[in-house]
């Protein structure tokens, strides 16, 4: 009999971690596990997200001082910036999920990519509309073909494009592959959006919150803004999981666990 010897013992600890990681990934790929756990997460995350949203919005609308230059119209920042931040963050999630489904053919990644598209589109739409409404009293116009705004409009078309492309194919495996490629190609747009206010002369103000160096926003305005960003991220997660649950149930309808689930209810 062959024993691996000391090298086996030395690698034992990492192998335990690796095994735990693989079990986790394996579970992530398991539809019934994902369906159950997402249901449990949604039960507390959704109320928490809604509470954070209400508190953040009321804080920003009623309890902060107006901007010294823009007056009260600046209060739109508490929805405009979170929507834009999460619309961009959501694109990463969609593109990474697309890459995973393309490379490893992981079914749940494919479902996550497709679930992220409508949520990202809605948030991009919110960012564009609230920005347009904010622009009227601040810049004197609803719309300008400015670098930041145009690149955000392209982001909206990318999200809508992924949704439309999936519907356009009868063969859903080919559809997913095409969507993943489009999502990955579209990531070119993300750094352009970030840098647009620095690269081009723009009406849009530069970022107020910076991770490096000082932010150009007063703490009394920053805290409600951060709370709203957290709330929007949590809402994104909720909508993403809710969309995924529908698709999981739909695709797994012929399997035993879905039948049992339906019979039990």
């Amino acid at each position, binding site marked *: 009999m062959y024993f691996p010897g000391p090298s086996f013992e030395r690698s034992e600890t990492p192998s335990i971690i690796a095994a735990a990681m693989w079990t986790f990934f394996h579970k992530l790929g398991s539809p019934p596990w994902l369906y159950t756990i997402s249901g449990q997460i949604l039960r507390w995350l959704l109320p928490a997200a809604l509470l954070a949203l209400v508190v953040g919005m009321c804080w920003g609308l*009623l309890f902060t001082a107006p901007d010294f230059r823009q*007056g*009260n119209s600046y209060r739109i920042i508490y929805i405009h910036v979170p929507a834009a931040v999460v619309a961009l963050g959501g694109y990463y999630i969609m593109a990474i999920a697309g890459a995973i489904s393309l490379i490893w053919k992981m079914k749940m990644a494919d479902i996550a990519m497709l679930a992220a598209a*409508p949520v990202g589109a809605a948030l991009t739409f*919110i960012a564009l*509309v609230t920005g347009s*409404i904010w622009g009227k009293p601040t810049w004197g116009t609803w719309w300008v073909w400015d670098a930041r705004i145009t690149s955000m409009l392209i982001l909206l078309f990318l999200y809508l494009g992924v949704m439309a492309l999936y519907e356009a194919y009868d063969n859903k495996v080919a559809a997913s592959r095409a969507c993943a490629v489009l999502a990955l190609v579209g990531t070119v747009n993300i750094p352009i959006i970030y840098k647009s206010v620095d690269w081009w002369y723009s009406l849009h103000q530069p970022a107020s919150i910076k991770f490096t160096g000082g932010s150009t926003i007063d703490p009394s305005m920053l805290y409600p803004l951060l709370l709203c960003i957290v709330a929007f991220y949590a809402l994104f997660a909720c909508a993403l999981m809710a969309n995924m649950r529908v698709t999981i*149930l*739909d695709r797994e309808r012929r399997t035993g666990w879905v039948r049992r689930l*339906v019979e039990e209810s």
Partner: protein
Amino acid sequence: MYFDSVAAVLAMDGHGPYVWAAYGITLLVLAQLLLWPARRLKRLRRELRGEVRRREAVKTNSVETS
């Protein structure tokens, strides 16, 4: 509270219509975002329950006829 009255909150020194329109549209879209999957899940579960019931009906029928 920054504002003195409800009227001041609504008016926001002339920026009221802009601010409230922006918040209204945002809440409307967010609500749809969460209600849409909930409605789809409900419809799908009803559909799947119907399938189960039909299967059971077929099963009992075949037992009776045999």
